[in-house]
């Protein structure tokens, strides 16, 4: 298999490019996606290749360009909506939640909304509280939405292609701080299935579950813990909804310990959901309560030192693993 070493942003770009070539009904719109080549360059070169009919700059009107995309999806097209930051998707929630998520059910199956809302989610570097939010727990709360949060270029490309082909509305959460991460991925076309977690490292002592950027911290923690003689089974959830509980539960049945690492807040977060499901399905197998490392319960502060303190980090993950294992 021939390989290419590319950044996450390029992998995502290739996914959009390949799907636009494959299906003439796929188009992309959003702020600065066309002439500016994307605020984070995910759409670089697409305007030159596909023209302004299919790569469309919008004014700063999130609610209405999202709604136009939803209406286009209801009438046969397959829009990709880029939010320059998922923080801006709040403006569009009426269309995402009230129309896209509910339309198929509410219309008795008459209309579907095959659409992808994508863009960077989570904390970047010192952009403070309005620009640092993790929205997976918010969107995963609504039946009708699929929520995906890849951690690397391979998954990013394969999952975005699957998302574009999916007949349902998909929230596709990228991360600004990993757009530049490089990885060897196949040059040939491939898909990554939605709803399948990935076991990144096999282990026997504790299961650690995460997704998106915090997977990097978990990998570093896993390597450090290995040196200390603790064998971590590290799982990248990849898809938040539908969550691959089978893979997580099978792992916990084996390791008897579980730690969830989430960049977002603890309260009513994805970690709370995973923890609940694990106590529900693995109650007898657990040798300690399910543990969480999350963002602390404050709006994100600007100051570098406070921001770092608020977010999960390798040291907190290692400490939480020790606490859970009591060793």
């Amino acid at each position, binding site marked *: 298999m021939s390989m290419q070493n590319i950044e996450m942003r390029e992998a995502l770009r290739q996914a959009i490019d390949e799907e636009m070539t494959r299906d003439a009904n796929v188009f992309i719109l959003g702020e600065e996606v066309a002439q500016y080549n994307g605020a984070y360059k995910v759409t670089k070169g697409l305007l030159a290749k596909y023209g302004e009919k299919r790569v469309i700059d919008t004014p700063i009107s999130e609610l209405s360009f999202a709604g136009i995309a939803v209406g286009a999806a209801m009438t046969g097209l397959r829009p990709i909506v880029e939010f320059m930051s998922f923080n801006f998707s709040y403006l569009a929630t009426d269309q995402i939640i009230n129309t896209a998520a509910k339309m*198929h059910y509410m219309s008795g199956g008459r209309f579907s909304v095959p659409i992808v809302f994508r863009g960077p989610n989570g904390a970047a570097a010192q952009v403070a509280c309005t620009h640092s939010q993790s929205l997976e727990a918010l969107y995963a709360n609504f039946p009708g939405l699929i929520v995906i949060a890849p951690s690397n270029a391979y998954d990013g490309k394969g999952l975005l292609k699957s998302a574009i082909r999916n007949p349902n509305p998909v929230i596709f959460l990228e991360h600004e701080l990993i757009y530049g991460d490089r990885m060897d991925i196949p040059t040939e076309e491939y898909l990554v299935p939605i709803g399948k977690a990935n076991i990144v490292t096999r282990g026997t002592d504790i299961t650690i579950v995460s997704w998106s950027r915090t997977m990097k911290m978990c990998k570093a923690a896993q390597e450090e813990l290995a040196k200390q003689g603790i064998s971590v089974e590290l799982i990248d959830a990849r898809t938040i909804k539908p969550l691959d509980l089978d893979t997580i539960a099978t792992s916990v049945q084996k390791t008897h310990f579980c730690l969830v690492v989430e960049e977002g807040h603890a309260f009513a977060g994805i970690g709370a959901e995973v923890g609940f499901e694990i106590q529900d399905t693995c109650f007898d197998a657990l040798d300690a309560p399910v543990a969480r490392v999350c963002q602390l319960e404050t709006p994100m502060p600007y100051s570098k030192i406070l921001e770092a303190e608020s977010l999960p980090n390798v040291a907190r993950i290692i400490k939480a693993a020790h606490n859970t294992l009591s060793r």
Partner: protein
Amino acid sequence: MTDFYPSNSDAIIRSLGRERLTAILQKMLLIRHFELRAEAAYQQGHIGGFFHSYVGQEAIQTAACEVIDHTNWFATSYRCHALALLLGATPDALMAELFGKESGNAHGRGGSMHMFSDHMLGGFGIVSNQISAAAGAAFSAKYRGTKEISVCFLGDGAMAQGTFHETLNLSSLWSLPCLFVVENNEWGMGTHVSRAVANSEQFSGLLAKAYNIESMKLDGMDFFNCYGGFEEAYKKVRTSGRPFVIECLTERFKGHSISDPGLYRTKEDLKRCMERDPIPLLKNTLVAKGIITEADYEAIDKACRERVLASLKFADESPFPGLKTLGTGVYVEEGP
């Protein structure tokens, strides 16, 4: 005096002819009977939730659906029973939906505020929710190079929502063939339009002009004025591929919803506006012109009443959805 689009009733009557005019009157009466009977069924406990009646406004959507071919796209607010009826949903399917039955328009999932047909995107439950989605249907048509336009009905209350402004801007910037029809019944629930929208009497026209969109005002109680205006606007949207704004001045004879006793307007005001009931206005014109007789009208009225009574029977006798189907349709299950 509002400057309405100068339609020519006599020319419209000549062009439509007796058969179509009779059918139009029948459609308006079917809506009227449907709404009144459904309201009664609500009060008897057969129907729940919110229920927004179209009584008083029938001339507008009836005229629009008479002019504009049903292969175009349509969307409206939660006051949506009439549009679904006009676009081919049967009284049976709509009444069964109100009753929450499996045979309903959305299999009991949508209810009064969320009704559909193959080219009616909704029935949108949130004020202004339909506006950008309707523009999206116009976007689709333009993208594919097909000739449909999109027709978006909204109330006067939605004029104050930001998405109306955003969507007019985008529709003009992108030249989307979308006809926005503001049905100004003067009341956003209990708040008069003059308390909700600045410069309300001139608002829609000036707003459209700001976005370089043509507009007109129509007398929403006068079927012929609506018909003439929609004919002109439909032609303009189709030939120019550009958006267009119509404001229809109208009156709803009922409360905002079934639970609204309408205490904000006096009985005298309501009586005065009901003097311009669009159905008698149309009927009296047709009788005066010798196109139909009183007896013809009685026969149509009776047939509509019976049709709606049959739909009540159908809805009542239809089974509720199976409890095992509760989770069906949350996601589209078939592959792409």
